[in-house]
């Protein structure tokens, strides 16, 4: 008999696990990897100053071409898909990074000017500057003193 009985056992368990994975993958393709949840991905942080909203999302592993951004009035939509290479012939120890398509729409507190939205993407962090529509900006109201006759 070669090897420790426990290592034989562990080999058999890992074989069983692989078989189970394969079976599940046939019935429910992609079950093993946490699919992106449509209602909450990506998490967004939102700031504002007088003229702009600033929206930020962490999207590691995405390319600019994987993302689709759209602004209309008060609505902002971000869509995309993360592709993760499949490594079927490798042993998998952890698979926590989400993949797949997502779409999220949020309602901004005020209307923005869609054609002036700017987006920057660096080290997996997407930062968007959304200028507020003219009539959504706070206005300074000049008070004129009326001369008394």
């Amino acid at each position, binding site marked *: 008999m070669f090897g420790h009985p426990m290592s034989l056992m562990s080999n058999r368990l890992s074989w069983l696990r692989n078989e189970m994975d394969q079976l599940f993958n046939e019935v429910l393709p992609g079950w093993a990897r946490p699919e992106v949840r449509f209602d909450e991905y990506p998490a967004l*942080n939102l700031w504002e*100053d007088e003229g702009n909203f600033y929206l930020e999302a962490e999207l*590691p*592993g995405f390319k600019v071409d994987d993302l689709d951004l759209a602004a209309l009035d008060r609505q902002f939509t971000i869509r995309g898909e993360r592709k993760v290479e499949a490594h079927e012939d*490798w*042993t998998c*120890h952890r698979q*926590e990074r*989400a993949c797949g398509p997502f779409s999220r729409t949020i309602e901004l507190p005020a209307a923005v000017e869609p054609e002036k939205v700017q987006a920057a993407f660096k*080290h997996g962090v997407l930062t968007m500057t959304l200028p507020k529509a003219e009539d959504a900006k706070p206005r300074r109201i000049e008070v004129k003193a009326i001369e008394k006759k």
Partner: protein
Amino acid sequence: MNMEMTKSRERRNIGQVESIRQGPSFLPAADIYEDTEAYRVWLDMPGVDPKEIDINFEQGTLSVWGKVPPRHTERAKILSSEYGVGDFRRTFNLTDSIDAGGIRAEYDDGVLYLMLPKVEAARPKKIAVRSK
């Protein structure tokens, strides 16, 4: 399984206050694969300055620390904050022997990739059968 996490919390948005540093740090989500040559690790670490990534491998323990510079401190008013911003830290124990000198790391689009080659003795070997 040859690789074990020393920390089991997997959601990176669970803030974890480190006592030795200011500010929270987060567990990066990880994909870990093994082939005959090496372990291959991908860690989601958005917003990290590539020059500020510490990777240590000592006595079978791999630790990664990616420093995240603060963002938007000057911006006026927070309307909604769904995730925290802070450093990424994670530690892994590897039982197989790793050739520490051959470890390679790349950071791209917010993802850290680590290639940890196995020492020759830990790689599977084909044994030739001779016949007379």
